[in-house]
């Protein structure tokens, strides 16, 4: 495994009396797509938010390249790890170019001016995702699939090599889901590491290089999709019987 990793180590987190995470360990490295499966309320999003340093764990640490996140500034972290949120609708009609441009914020700093090289970086990212024609459109008027690409564009503009995505396929129709998978695969091939939560084991089977499951606040399974996405895991995770399905069938 490369040294460039983001790793949660035995992370505990409680909300009130309820333990959401009880010693969860999860890592992400370049050139892999890790899918995190779990029931509703299993704590998938909480784990992501802890790994992004939005939340502080009660116990345990998150490390970036071996350094605890508590000792890494937000700006530095933002240039290494980017967050792609669930589809949402911002209240102001920013242009696509402006939204992608926000990704330069960690490099320039809050009060810094954007330079020619920042603008070039933004153009380059938009071209690489084929959203350059949308540059002067309003983000709020785009389709769900287009907005998801713009969010990925902003993440790439940060210069981060590790992307953390919260249910990237939610709200996309089937065609856009397949297109997004192709995009993500090609990002992986370019050396990006992607960690995502999903509700769809079949998505994980199609795209993941590694599938993890979050059960009772801990990572229960962590392995290649053909080992994890099997009827026994599906039964344990969702309480349903699965007879024939994707790579589960072939294994």
């Amino acid at each position, binding site marked *: 495994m490369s040294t460039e990793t983001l790793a949660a180590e035995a992370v505990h987190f409680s909300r009130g009396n309820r333990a959401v995470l009880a010693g969860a360990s999860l890592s992400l490295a370049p050139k892999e797509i890790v899918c995190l499966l779990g029931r509703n309320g299993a704590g998938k999003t909480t784990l992501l938010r802890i790994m992004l340093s939005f939340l502080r764990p009660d116990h345990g640490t998150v490390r970036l390249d071996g350094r605890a996140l508590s000792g890494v500034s937000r700006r530095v972290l933002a240039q290494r790890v980017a967050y792609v949120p669930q589809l949402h609708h*911002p209240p*102001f*009609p920013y242009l696509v170019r402006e939204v992608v441009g926000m990704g330069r914020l960690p490099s320039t700093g809050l009060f810094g001016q954007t330079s020619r090289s920042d603008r070039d970086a933004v153009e380059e990212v938009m071209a690489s995702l084929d959203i350059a024609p949308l540059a002067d459109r309003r983000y709020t008027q785009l389709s769900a699939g287009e907005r998801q690409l713009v969010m990925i564009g902003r993440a790439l503009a940060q210069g981060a090599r590790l992307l953390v995505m919260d249910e990237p396929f939610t709200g996309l129709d089937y065609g856009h889901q397949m297109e997004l998978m192709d995009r993500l695969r090609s990002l992986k091939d370019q050396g990006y590491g992607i960690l995502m939560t999903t509700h769809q084991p079949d998505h994980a089977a199609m795209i993941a290089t590694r599938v993890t499951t979050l059960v009772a606040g801990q990572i229960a399974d962590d392995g290649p999709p053909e080992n994890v996405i099997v009827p026994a895991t599906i039964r344990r995770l969702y309480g349903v019987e699965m007879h024939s399905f994707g790579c589960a069938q072939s294994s």
Partner: protein
Amino acid sequence: MKQVRRRALWQMIAAAGPPWELVLGAGLVLAMILALSVGKYPIAVAEIPQFFLASVGLGSVAADRYAALANVIIDIRLPRVLAAVLVGSALASSGAAFQAVFRNPLVSPGLLGVLSGASFGAALGIVLGVSWYFVQALAFVMGLGAVVFGVAVARLFGNSSTLTLVLGGIVSGALFSSLLSIIKYVADPMNALPNIVYWLMGNLAQSNLTQIAWLAIPMVGGVVLLGVLGRALDALAMGDDEARSLGVPVGVIRFAVIATATLVSSLTVSIAGMIGWIGLIVPHVVRLALGASNTRLMPSAAIFGAMFLLGADYLARTMANTEIPIGIVTELLGIPIFLLVLSRTNRGWNEH
């Protein structure tokens, strides 16, 4: 379609011509000169720059004319024009800042209850007979109290969505309005009461140059601070987690923005009473014309707010034989403009 064309035109101008800050700044200077020339005592527009050049030793104006001009321009009209510029820019930029930080295009200093809170604080100060400085401090403290109360009410009803925050602001505004009514009720009807009522209706002519100079320090400082926070406000407008993921220290920035916007909008109350609508409509008008980016919106809204209030003050002075309180004029102007903006803004608001 029209909007698209206008933006394209603007971008062409922006690409070819001088920077937009310069264009807007020049517009503001021109508006100030025009405002200084308007009034009962006739002064030609060209005399204004001549007078100011003469006053710094460049060029000359006949001595008796200079004295007359000095009296009218410096003593009578300049305080008023500066008050309009300060109040207009403070209201517009704090309105834009509140909208970004609360992710809510429907809030403004007025709607969040800041103006009511500050009015109550200042009226309380007047009735208690405390010093002028303490009146300002009370206005700010009560303005801040009103925001905190409004946000707390919104939190009570779940996450701060567009509607609950507006609701919280209405409740907070109502609370401080009724507290203000109590003050009015107990105020001395011969002296303090007429003062409070007349001043709250909105009047730009009640501050002298010294008071304005003192208030200008925090107000200009606040407007400039909000202006340089544009990129942080853009990130905050996308959501707390996203702002954090872009390296923005969300808590610090949010606190600084709310405190600053509350300070500058509270101080407008002590200069000119309650002037509504500017904080709501100016950011919308500028957003329609120049786009949503706060790096451009914040300074442009400040300048455009100043020009808007200068224009409203012109109407207040000339529409009728007697002067109409400026607060009434901005309200009369604001409502049709707001409706127009509402019909043109894209419909993002009611999708929450």
